């Protein structure tokens, strides 16, 4: 065990936590905003898959990872338009449509990828990183001279993600847009009575969700794996929905939940590598148990919107 308490291992532990946490951060942040507006995106897994594929595709053909991230976000947003049309505008069941989006995305991405890349299996290599001057040379948290970096040596998209979290928290709490989003989820009739379109508010929140989930998927394929593989998301979209619900509307708790999950997952890897004699069944429960305990203990005062997953029909009681 003691031979694992080295700088390299501890740095890799943090890097692993970031690699596992960032896709969840983007996806659950988008889902949290959509949920606050009253839209439950069960198809989050599908948005992520589409984002992962198109992000990879753009990065591979464009030779630029930043373009890849933009491509992934755009693809996720485009798919979320299905949710907007069928659920927000037409009022169809959000759960049924969400499941359909996930199934279609799984089949479509596997089909297109196999048709184009099954033989060649291209990879993207390591993503370029920004080293924070002075801090990136620190042991363990620096990571400048390691394979996957650490806190102060990460690809720009990670730092952009932190800025998006701050902006989202500020927007929800301090702006009219944020007030509209919260009202669309809590009391849509009041928002309607105030002359603001509930459909438009929910639509924009859903598109934001799609873009963020697509970005999370793109991070997964471009940075976390460096390649695309059928069903690469492996249920991360559903984990992101759970994180968004446990965070209950707070962007900061989405950030904490995502990284607690990522670091817990990374710790479970290190426990195995250390040869700790615990059943892997228990080891793999660690991230889920940790997140639930942390968010229940510290996030109790948040809540789920009253009109979550309910279509808005003007005048309906």
């Amino acid at each position, binding site marked *: 065990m003691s031979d694992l308490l080295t700088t390299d291992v501890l*740095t890799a532990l943090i890097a692993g936590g970031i690699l596992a946490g960032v896709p969840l951060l983007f996806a659950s942040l988008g889902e949290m905003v959509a949920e606050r507006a009253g839209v439950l995106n069960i198809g989050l897994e599908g948005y992520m898959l589409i984002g992962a594929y198109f992000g990879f595709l753009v990065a591979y053909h464009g030779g630029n990872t930043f373009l890849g991230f933009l491509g992934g976000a755009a693809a996720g947003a485009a798919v979320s338009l299905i949710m907007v049309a069928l659920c927000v505008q037409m009022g169809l069941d959000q759960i049924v449509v969400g499941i359909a989006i996930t199934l279609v995305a799984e089949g479509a991405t596997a089909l297109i990828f196999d048709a184009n890349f099954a033989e060649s299996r291209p990879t993207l*290599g*390591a993503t370029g990183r920004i080293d924070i001057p002075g801090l990136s040379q620190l042991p363990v948290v620096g990571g400048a001279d390691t394979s996957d970096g650490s806190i102060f040596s990460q690809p720009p998209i990670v730092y952009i993600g932190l800025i998006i979290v701050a902006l989202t928290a500020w927007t929800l709490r301090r702006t009219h847009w944020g007030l509209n989003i919260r009202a669309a989820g809590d009391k849509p009739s009041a928002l309607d009575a105030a002359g603001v379109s509930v459909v438009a508010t929910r639509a924009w929140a859903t598109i934001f969700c799609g873009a963020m989930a697509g970005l999370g998927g793109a991070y997964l394929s471009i940075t976390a*794996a460096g390649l695309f*593989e059928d069903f690469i998301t492996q249920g991360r979209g559903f984990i992101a929905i759970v994180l968004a619900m446990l965070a209950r509307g707070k962007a900061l708790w989405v950030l904490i939940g995502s990284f607690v999950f990522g670091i817990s997952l*990374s710790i479970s890897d290190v426990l195995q590598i250390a040869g700790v004699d615990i059943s892997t069944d228990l080891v793999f429960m660690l991230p889920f148990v940790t997140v639930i305990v942390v968010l229940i203990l510290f996030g109790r005062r948040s809540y789920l919107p009253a009109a979550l997953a309910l279509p808005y029909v003007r005048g309906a009681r």
Partner: protein
Amino acid sequence: MKKRLLKYTAMAIVVAAVIALTGCGSDDSSSTTAASSAASIEKIAIAAPEKGNDYGWNQQGVEGATAAAESAGAEIDVADGSGYDDVEPVLRRLAQRGAKMIIAQASGYNTVAPKVAAEFKVPTIVFDSPSATTPGEVADVETSSQQGAYLAGILAAKTTKTGTLGIVISAADTNWFKQAGGFAAGAKSVNPDVKFKMAQIGQAAYADSAGGKRVTSQVIAAGADVVFGMGDGASFGMLQAVETAKAPAGADKVWFIDVIGDKTPIDKKGVLLSSVIWDFTKVYEQAIADIGAGTFGDQGYDLSVSNGISLLRTDHASDEVWAEIDDAQAKIASGEIDVPLTPDQAAVNALIK
């Protein structure tokens, strides 16, 4: 509007009736198949869950079946990418299309494949289900994959400069555990002091390439400079981690040893040290011969170093090392070396600690 609706409904009924009648006709032909089961093998079929170009299990199965069919002068009917959820229609269709032997290339097909074999009287091969073996109908294939992994362990122990070897598996899979144990035993036969760093990505993370990369990076950070990876789709992430890794202290490069298939065509950085190849050709050829002899299903088959498991030969090791591996392979085949069987995590842990 109402007339048009009625017209479409009538058309739908006619189409459904035609499909139903076609199905009945096929059932008739299946009776013919049953009656002529002793005839020569004109066609064999294989159903595989993923596409037959995955550089792994599915590709090896399809290529083995194709080679066996070719040597028997038979036609091959490939149904790859059939998934796991509902394969019964696929197997029925293969039987209806005249297959005289069906290979159900996934242990996930073990419930439905014997049922279809009994119904259509088509000799069928299943995997990891010894109890399913039934004379004339079903034969099981087991893999002594630990034997090939033993050879990989020798190669790894001869190659490592840090004295630490990594083992990464994607799931709690019996074959992965068997190979992990064989690998450890092989490495220890060369160097009893060699250390192992082992980690599992998830309970069934076969396709988690991001998880494969994350876990492999951590194993490398713990000092492993040779990684033995077992993962299906996740192994592409493992390979990516090895390609992008900074070598641990004491080593100048990190190497990867794969299983089942040959990833040489996609090894752009030259880090693929070898692979434990599973070639099913001889097993399938034997099954075809047994059908001809009327002994199919009297017993199961074992894929081993004697009939299809070997180590992919690359130029990353010296001739002396390969000679030593060849010698070990011969001793395993003759029974002089008995590779331990480790079907679960506890058995593997007992070997690597």
